[in-house]
């Protein structure tokens, strides 16, 4: 296996993966999306809400705020245990982080409540972004609420996923038969991503744009001498992950791999118990 980093920022990761079957890569991608636990607000208790926004509307906005969860999986109980506790309305401190919010409209003008105004009971679990507008208040309007965040998994609700976009893509293999190519340049005009260019009267691949190819095959269709063929490389893929900021890319991938290993071990154990394997 060979991995090359194409792009790495605090919120994105793009990897060029070679010699790894797509089902393995997809298993990792799906584990990242739906299995890696992160924190998100799950219950909101409204003590007072005289704003124009309905309770449900504010609760929904609160739920979607990404919360920093880097140390949360070590400090708090598993999503499954905490989901059960939540259903019984037992907001114990080993499962739930409490976030308080209290605000009142000013005498003059308007007050915007931001995600930074949430006072968290745990300094490790707080909104990733400080300036998400949550509600607006004018004179005489008041909001007082208690929100409870717990660990959860993306398969239960997407607010518990550490990533937003998570994709894998084939790597294009564009074969140009330079003997048949008549240098008409139609393929270059047809390509919406600028993957091809004309050099010395022949169409060649513009290497810097190769990964932008979307396999639309317009170049193939417009080529009268049929000199271009678009296919993909075997066992070469580009994995792209767009993080919400709840977990670091490093922690997300380590957790995802550990979850997959644990699932495979459980499967093997089950087969052993049933006598299918030795």
């Amino acid at each position: 296996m060979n991995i090359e980093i194409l792009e790495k920022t605090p919120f994105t990761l793009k990897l060029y993966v070679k010699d790894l079957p797509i089902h393995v890569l997809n298993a990792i991608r799906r584990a990242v999306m739906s299995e890696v636990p992160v924190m998100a607000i799950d219950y909101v208790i409204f003590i007072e809400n005289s704003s124009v926004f309905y309770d449900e509307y504010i609760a929904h906005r609160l739920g979607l705020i990404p919360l920093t969860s880097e140390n949360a999986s070590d400090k708090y109980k598993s999503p499954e245990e905490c989901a059960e506790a939540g259903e019984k309305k037992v907001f114990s401190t080993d499962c739930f982080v409490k976030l308080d919010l209290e605000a009142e409209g000013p005498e003059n003008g308007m007050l915007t409540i931001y995600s930074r105004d949430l006072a968290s009971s745990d300094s490790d679990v707080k909104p990733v972004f400080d300036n998400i507008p949550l509600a607006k208040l004018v004179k005489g309007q008041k909001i007082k609420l208690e929100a409870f965040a717990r660990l959860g998994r993306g398969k239960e609700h997407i607010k518990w996923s550490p990533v937003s976009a998570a994709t894998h893509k084939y790597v294009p293999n564009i074969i140009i038969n330079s003997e048949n190519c008549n240098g008409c340049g139609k393929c270059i005009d047809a390509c919406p991503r600028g993957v091809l260019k004309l050099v010395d009267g022949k169409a060649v691949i513009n290497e810097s744009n190769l990964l932008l190819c979307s396999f639309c095959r317009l170049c193939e269709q417009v080529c009268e001498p049929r000199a271009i063929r678009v296919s993909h490389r075997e066992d070469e893929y580009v994995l792209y992950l767009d993080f919400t900021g709840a977990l670091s890319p490093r922690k997300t991938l380590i957790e995802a791999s550990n979850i997959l290993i644990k699932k495979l071990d459980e499967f093997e154990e089950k087969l052993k118990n049933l006598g299918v394997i030795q």
Partner: protein
Amino acid sequence: MLFPVRCFTCGAPIGHLWEEYIKRVKQGEPPAKVLDELGVKRYCCRRMFLSHVEIADEVLHFPKVS
């Protein structure tokens, strides 16, 4: 009402970018340039900004019916 916390399609957090976006667009910068600089790449997220109308500011002054 208010600008959404996340993109409806891909789920990327975008709520924190709204105030800077609208401030700069009102100052006369082209929306495309502002979105590029804020790092909003996909067209699902970009349309969230382009199509949003902040009606909350007006609704704020009407009493709630409930």
